[in-house]
């Protein structure tokens, strides 16, 4: 197990290196001269040139990259152009907010997805199966920004049940309850699509497994249906489900951007969006890098869990250890 994870970690290093190159190059795709924003409209060319030098923009790209990477590795993500503060200070707290939204949404999506999927798989092709799957397919294809608008229209504007924006009551809130109230709508919106995808994969995997011979054997042994679903089917259906769940969590990290924008959730997606609008390249780089890192970590975790679930890998590790 540990050997497997170590192997994966080693494989991750070149990927991370490539990620850093892409993130770095993104900055140089962007049109516009950052010194104009930094120095203000009255700045002379001399002042701008000074700035360019102080930002190292006068150097060759590879040199700039190596310096940049060196800083990143030391935890220095540079200074935000729009906000003039450490990108790390901007990005990490926002990432925590995003993690709160993404993880709670993922949890909700997994729970809904699991129950809906198992519910449907337990009675395949029945009327209730078709209804559940039809609804999930609809919700799964609904653009999140559109769904969010409908939710806010209904819950906040028409019924006035929940706050529409932000993470806490800005006029003086805070505390877990306040955050929770603000979390509900973005969480519902974010969870909709992954819940549907999880439900569909759970159903499909369960059906696949339920049609396996060993399930029939288990039934012939007189094992209770509930136990078969829980023990035999779910346990075997788990690897693809875990993979999809992990992927969904990864997509949530990137995809919450829409939801964060609509609900003004102070997350990294919202930060990224504002940075894009302000052409704040260091912040764009920092936010993108952090999300990509999180995505890589989630993928690693998925691989590790699946390795743990695969008896062949587990057994070979055991054999190797003994």
């Amino acid at each position: 197990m540990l050997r497997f994870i170590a192997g994966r970690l080693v494989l991750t290093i070149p990927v991370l290196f490539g990620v850093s190159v892409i993130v770095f190059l993104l900055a140089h795709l962007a049109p516009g001269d950052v010194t104009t924003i930094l120095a203000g409209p009255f700045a002379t060319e001399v002042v701008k040139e000074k700035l360019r030098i102080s930002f190292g923009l006068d150097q060759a790209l590879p040199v700039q990259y190596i310096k940049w990477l060196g800083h990143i590795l030391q935890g220095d993500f540079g200074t935000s152009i729009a906000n003039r503060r450490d990108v790390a200070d901007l990005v990490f707290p926002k990432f925590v907010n995003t993690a709160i939204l993404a993880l709670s949404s993922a949890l909700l999506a997994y729970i809904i997805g699991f129950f809906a999927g198992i519910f449907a798989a337990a009675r395949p092709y029945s009327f209730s199966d078709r209804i559940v799957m039809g609804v999930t397919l609809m919700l799964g294809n609904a653009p999140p920004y559109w769904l969010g608008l409908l939710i806010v229209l209904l819950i906040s504007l028409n019924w006035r049940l929940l706050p529409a924006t932000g993470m806490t009551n800005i006029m003086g809130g805070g505390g877990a309850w306040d955050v929770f109230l603000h979390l509900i709508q973005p969480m519902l919106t974010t969870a909709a699509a992954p819940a549907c995808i999880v439900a569909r994969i759970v159903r499909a995997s369960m059906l696949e497994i339920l049609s396996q011979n060993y399930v029939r054997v288990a039934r012939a042994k007189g094992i209770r249906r509930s136990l078969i679903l829980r023990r035999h089917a779910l346990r075997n259906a788990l690897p693809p489900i875990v993979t999809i769940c992990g992927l969904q969590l990864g997509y949530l990290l990137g995809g919450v951007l829409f939801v964060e924008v609509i609900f003004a959730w102070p997350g990294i997606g919202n930060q990224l969006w504002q940075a894009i609008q302000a052409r704040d390249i260091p912040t764009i780089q920092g936010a993108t890098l952090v999300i990509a890192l999180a995505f890589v970590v989630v993928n690693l975790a998925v691989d590790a869990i699946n390795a743990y679930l695969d008896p062949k890998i587990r057994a070979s590790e055991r054999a190797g250890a003994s």
Partner: protein
Amino acid sequence: MSKLKFKRLLGAVAIAGSLAFAGGAATEVKAEGGTFVWGMSSEMSILDPHVACGWLTTNAIHSIFEGLVMLDLSDPDAKSAPLKPAIAKSWEVNEDGTVYTFAIRENVRFHDGTAVDADVVKWNYDRFMDSGAEHAFDQAQAYLGYYTRWIKSVEVTGPMSVKITLNETNYEWLQMGVVACGMPMIASPTAIQEMGNEQFALTPVGTGPFKFIEREQNIKLVMDRNEDYWGENAKIERLIFQPLPDQATRLNAIRAGEVSMIMEAPWEELENLKNEGFTVTINENIPSIWLLFFNHKNPIMQDVRVRKAINMAIDRDAIADGILKGTGRPEMGMLSPGTYAYKPGYAPVKYDPEGAKALLAEAGYPDGLDLDFDIYEYGYNEVWEKSIQRDLKKVGVNAKLNKIEWITYMGKFLKGMPEELHMNEIGWGWTIPFWTQVMTRCDYHPPNGFNVGWYCNPEVDKLFDEAVKQKDKAKAAALYQQANDIIIGQDFGYAVKFTYKNPLVLSPSVKHFVNPPANWYDFSIIELE
């Protein structure tokens, strides 16, 4: 360094984790006066007045800081904002308008407790104009150049007295210090020396009616009432600026009662909001106009008939009423509203597509002509530029719109138009007519100013030179209007389009909000019910 960053990250995680256990320990202290939240359309820049730009940032700076003088923004009926004393309790101008003597107010303290005196004022002026000073800040010097270029010297003439001598007579100079980009305000020297320029811009310390409390980037800027303010304390307890870049989110927020004021609500929704009980306030005297620059270096545009024809071809009413739904007003003059020189209804020509066509034919373009037109991508301007494109099409002018991302645009704009380009655009204005000079004078061609279309008429410059020497505002206004009548009425050197009255939506609990002839507001006079 990296350890520190990592610790911060850990801290953030710990905070997030502890949220789960905090369990409704919300500390909602309703102080007297209440909290006013402004849902802004974007995040502000840094809060160092000497290097800050942009009107949202200006709003925060004017709440936290004060200059020697400030604009009085409390009169709802004012056509242009008068000066009021601030750090200087009074000032005197000598006979020829070159020496300004300021009496510094006693008992003014910064939010950090530092007292204000003549040395503090001098220290601040050194920061943004004396490159030899130890604490000189070269970025500040770039930002404030438009103001400091007139200054010959700043002298401390007593513990509470400062004398500023100008190079030449300028009666507008004092007001040049209250425009929105690079503001000669008085900041706490103690704070700047302790924190350094970078940190000060994030945690500013001034003397204003509100003091900086905290700022979470892209989430909120929190300011509290300065209880030790030298003047009348603000009515509200707490002032929060909340960036809500998404228009619909802002609307949702004010409807849900989460903010007290929003800007840039959809024009179509204003009527509904009024019906729902919200106050919609429109800035009739906003010192800002939207205009097209003609490139006077371009052979086609050098023909006054072409420039006049374009002025006649633009259907300004269609933009003001049709697109902006009454939140715009057609304008043709180069003197913006909100200044004492503004002349309402100035219109040397009328909307006349037929006449424009005839003029173009006369100029040698009976079959029309093609023009290149730089526009920037920011806000809604494309909507009206498209409308102008259609107007021009009607008179045979094919305008090609080159849409350019804002920062790139600014870079290109500030260099002045290259010869092959025909037009570009900007929306801008100051509270003083001097802005018109910056846009039109021969010696304000880039890189010395913003006359990016290379317009030049020495006759106009002479009138301007006279205008700043007038102590009497009425006389100055007359000279400005005379210049304006040459720039537009005779030369048609620009095509001014309209002024956008920037509607604000206020929640019903907000009282005494004044929408003044400026781009920023006095939050200390607001009351909440």
